[in-house]
């Protein structure tokens, strides 16, 4: 046994919300009483803006209390390319680990949701923008395999502005094929995959496993797509329409099943799991 089961005891270094009683909401730019935001699962009471939350917190909001047991928490990034730009990949990883207490950009494990056993993973955008390198790909692919072997549903909450992690080059790109192949095996075995998209899910993460849910749910107003808005803007040399690549845009164009408020997400999951995984 080497996993860290109780992540709650780790020093909390969340920086999502500035300290103080009030906070300015990036969604509506209003000053909001902070405890009101926290009470609503880090959602703005005025405009429904969903503040980013840590993977730990996400687990708390979705899983039955204390049911989450992490596995593969020890996998850590190698540096197969000896990638050095302004700073080395190694240095960036070390620094990010110290700052966040995270070992990588996602955690995976077993849990129960509404008392049903699931395999669940959550990406954490604080770690190199939630990007997918070898470790994230490996964790996801092996979790999917476990879900298939045990006949458990697989749930993954994506949040990756980084897509496939540049610092690991082609190893990262290949994780797209690897995770998608694992999903195919789960699919052939009749397993359920619920993909939950949060702000932002882009690039290599979105163009692989995250897009392959039997049911795809998204938090409101998340940025979801293939190419980043800046790249598109530069390529076509034109302004992008309002709400482009939002959850609602993806719903309208038929790519996701539902837009679900953060506070409704656990309830929605319980309903889906009960529907697909219970006889009656």
């Amino acid at each position, binding site marked *: 046994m080497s996993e860290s089961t109780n992540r709650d005891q780790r020093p909390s270094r969340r920086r999502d919300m500035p300290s103080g009683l009030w906070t300015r909401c990036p969604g509506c730019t209003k000053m909001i009483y902070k405890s009101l935001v926290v009470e609503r699962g880090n959602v703005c009471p005025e405009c429904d803006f969903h503040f980013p939350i840590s993977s730990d917190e996400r687990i708390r909001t979705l899983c039955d209390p204390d049911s989450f047991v992490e596995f593969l928490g020890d996998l850590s990034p190698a540096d197969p390319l000896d990638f050095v730009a302004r700073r080395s990949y190694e240095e960036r990883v070390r620094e990010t680990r110290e700052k966040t207490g995270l070992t990588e950009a996602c955690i995976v494990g077993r849990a129960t949701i509404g008392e049903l056993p699931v395999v669940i993973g959550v990406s954490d955008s604080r770690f190199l923008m939630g990007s997918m390198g070898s470790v994230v790909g490996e964790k996801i692919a092996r979790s999917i395999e476990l879900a298939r072997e045990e006949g458990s549903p697989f749930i993954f909450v994506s949040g990756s502005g980084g897509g496939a992690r540049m610092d690991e080059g082609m190893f990262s790109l290949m994780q797209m094929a690897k995770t998608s192949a694992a999903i195919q095996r789960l699919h052939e075995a009749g397993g359920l995959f619920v993909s939950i998209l949060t702000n932002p899910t882009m690039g290599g993460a979105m*163009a692989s496993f995250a897009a392959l849910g039997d049911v795809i749910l998204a938090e409101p107003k998340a940025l979801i797509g293939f190419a980043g808005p800046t790249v598109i803007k530069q390529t076509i040399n034109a302004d992008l329409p309002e709400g482009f690549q939002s959850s609602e845009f993806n719903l309208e164009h038929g790519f996701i099943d539902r837009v679900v408020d953060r506070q409704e997400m656990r309830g929605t999951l319980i309903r889906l799991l009960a529907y697909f995984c219970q006889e009656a």
Partner: protein
Amino acid sequence: MENESSAHGLDFEAPIVELENRIAELRSFSESSEIDLSGQLEELEKKCEEKKKAIYSHLNPWQRVQIARHPQRPLTSDYLKGFVTDFMELHGDGAYRDDPAIVTGLGRIRGRKVMVVGHRKGKTNPEKVACNFGMPHPEGYRKAIKKMRLAEKFGIPIITFINTAGAFPGIQAEERGQAFVIAKNLQDMASLRVPVISIVIGEGGSGGAIGIGVADRILMMENSYYSVISPEGCAAILWKDASHAPRAAEILKLTSSDLSAFGIVDEVVEEPTGGAHREPMETIRRVEETILRHLDEISDIDPDIRKQQRFEKYMAIGRYADEQQQTIGDQG
């Protein structure tokens, strides 16, 4: 008279092009004046050959990227003409539109049935524009997988030619689900029971490349590249300046030799000295030979085992530290 290759010459190739031009001049002078200059010609040709070897044996990654993009480099259409007989193009994705940036169709290689899927860049300017410079929209990926499923139904092996700067980043591409169709292709290609061979013939641009690239055998031309991000895109992120692309090409480890050393690529097809664009016919012959050899190797494998092996091949790709040798079973 300026010859063709100098019009598209790459900086580092200038000494070669210069010698090639002198040879061409001398030859035409010799022919028109009926003076025998074969001795001098031979000497110059030898010199040119040596120069090619010297330059081409020490190419840096950025130079290879430039060769991969060379306007006279053989394209999917050249390989089709070169060794695919009875080719019949099949159009359309059955949903929205026929995307010219990807060509799909039936054919034979030395009599053997194959389904061909490849990025299409186009040769002339109007062609290039029509093909969106080889950058597909979602319907291109949908067309590709539709034809692959057809091949699957009739047990026909699939050959994919990869040559794209990337899937197109545009408003309509996003509206039509670029991320979702690429993901679907990755999933569906993992399900195929027929043999699949992919070869990167020029540019292997990220998701747009792998979107038709899940295969039993991944081949690369010597001077092609395959990368998670374009060197320009990488440079723009790292140094806020796309002109640092040569440095980015260096650190991304995107060349055929890097990827072969990583075990990601199964075989590198050596190009004639001076690059595929100098000797397209010989290049095409080598590609045909390599594809056939791999096709032979994987065709006799039981379809379910082949599919299983493809899955295991991809599961094994990744480098990470696992000090505790963790397995999920240990977690109890």
